[in-house]
């Protein structure tokens, strides 16, 4: 975690800040969801408590804490309490492994009469070299908390919802895993930072062994993998149990799915897990297909030079650059989160057999076709035919 006390403490604080940021974004997203749905349905939504209804969230949070701690009879108590807590873990860890901005390189500096440094702080909770595999593996652990909740509730609706959600998640995981193979073929790496580096600058690719450049487009993955991007984003909707794939909590059939018996803060924690999953998925979408923290036509070095030109010290310039690029990444994440909400209030829910058919018989073959076409095109483009 670090060589000395300063580095370790900075890393720990960073880790906690990213987690708290994730948790704090949830009430805001709930507000956006309620207001957004209201505007889509031509009504006003919560607008009484505070400006634009923003402090409604605070009131809700206080209400959740002062709710009665209630467990129905015949439940498996340990699993019943453990499920909402466990549901936080995969979302937090998956989100923590995704780089949110450039790493900050700190040169040697003096503080309290002793010298520190040089350091390199990654703008994420922790770095894992096998980023993609790690995030995919961790985020699919989300099925466990649902199964725990469904099994321990001793309620047939809960169990049915949990089983459905588990079957749905594993079915769409195939399409999800396969749509990423195209990205791996393209960049040849599991590491997020390397992948984002490869997406900097204008659109440049090899055409029959010669380099072709399109100066007015950014070098983002979406231009190489449009079908993969659509498949990935669709599969992610199913993975996070959002409409149109929210069969686990189809309220017309299953009351509320796996969290039927949950109330108060315990149910709220499931929501934090779900929104955390959405944030991780949006971040992945940005990293794979939209250049991550890349700002089109603006290289990190030139930004750092500009900051240095304004008279900032090298360390401050590095920090300011990282935060500027973090704003870019965050804007992309917020955009995809809005798409999640937008789709929820636009497209109605599938029937269960339609959902499974879409996963196995439509998305899996298309993802396979995407893989094969990508492989063949890359072979033709990159081979030196002369």
């Amino acid at each position, binding site marked *: *975690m670090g060589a000395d006390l300063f580095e370790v403490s900075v890393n*720990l604080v960073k*880790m*906690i800040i990213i*987690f708290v940021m994730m948790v704090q974004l949830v009430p805001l997203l709930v507000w956006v969801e309620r207001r957004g749905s209201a505007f889509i349905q031509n009504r006003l939504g919560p607008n009484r408590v505070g400006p634009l209804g923003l402090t409604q969230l605070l009131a809700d949070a206080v209400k*959740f*804490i*002062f709710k*009665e701690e*209630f467990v*129905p*009879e*015949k439940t498996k108590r340990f699993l019943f*309490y453990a499920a*909402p*807590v466990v549901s*936080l*873990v995969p979302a937090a*860890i998956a989100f*923590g492994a995704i780089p949110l901005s450039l790493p900050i390189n700190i040169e040697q500096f003096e503080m309290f009469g002793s010298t520190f440094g040089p350091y390199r702080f990654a703008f994420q*909770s*922790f*770095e*894992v070299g096998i980023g993609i*595999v790690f995030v995919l593996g961790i985020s699919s652990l989300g099925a466990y908390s649902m199964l725990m909740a469904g099994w321990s*509730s*001793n*309620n*047939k609706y809960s*169990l049915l919802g949990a*089983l459905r959600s*588990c079957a749905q998640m*594993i*079915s769409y995981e*195939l399409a999800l*895993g*396969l749509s990423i*193979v195209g990205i*791996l*073929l393209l960049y*040849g790496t*599991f590491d997020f930072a390397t992948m984002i580096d490869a997406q900097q600058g204008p659109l440049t690719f090899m055409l029959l062994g010669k380099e072709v450049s399109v100066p007015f487009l950014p070098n983002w993955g979406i231009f190489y993998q449009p079908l993969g991007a659509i498949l990935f984003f669709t599969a992610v909707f199913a993975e996070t149990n959002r409409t149109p794939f929210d069969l686990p909590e189809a309220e017309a059939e299953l*009351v509320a799915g796996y969290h*039927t*018996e949950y109330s108060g*803060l*315990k149910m709220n*924690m499931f929501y934090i897990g779900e929104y955390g999953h959405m944030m991780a998925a949006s971040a992945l979408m940005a990293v794979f297909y939209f250049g991550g923290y890349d700002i089109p036509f603006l290289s990190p070095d030139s930004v750092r030079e500009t900051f240095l030109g304004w008279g900032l010290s090298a360390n401050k310039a590095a920090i300011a650059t990282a935060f500027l690029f973090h704003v870019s990444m965050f804007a992309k994440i917020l955009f995809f989160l809005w798409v999640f909400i937008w789709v929820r209030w636009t497209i109605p829910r599938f029937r269960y057999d339609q959902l*499974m058919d879409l996963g*196995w*018989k439509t998305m899996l*073959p298309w993802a*396979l076709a995407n*893989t094969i076409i990508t*492989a*063949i095109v*890359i*072979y033709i483009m*990159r*081979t030196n035919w002369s």
Partner: protein
Amino acid sequence: MNSLVPIIALTIFVLLFGAGLLFLVSLVGPKPKNSSAKNSTYECGIDVQTTGHSKISVRYYLTAILFILFDIEIIFMYPWALAYGDFIKEGHGLYILGAMGVFLLIFIIGLIWEIKSKALEWD
């Protein structure tokens, strides 16, 4: 090992955060007054007719088994995709494309057979 430490630290922190919140709620929330109507399992208001753990459709098991088979096959593609660019650079592109082509052919035949044998029908 060193890169595992922050992951474990974050896991422990998140678990403690969740457990702490639950503990906080149990401190400040009102104490429950029990009654059999309130404590019984929710079944849309009627008296409880069934146990929570009834029989489960065999389709779920079938889906799970098929998932494991296909997921292993997909994971097998990851190292291939990773090494693909290097093979092309060294001029062995056709070899690696053909090698994976055979594997993908088996994958596709499996998928078609699975659909044809109606293993994925939900009725």
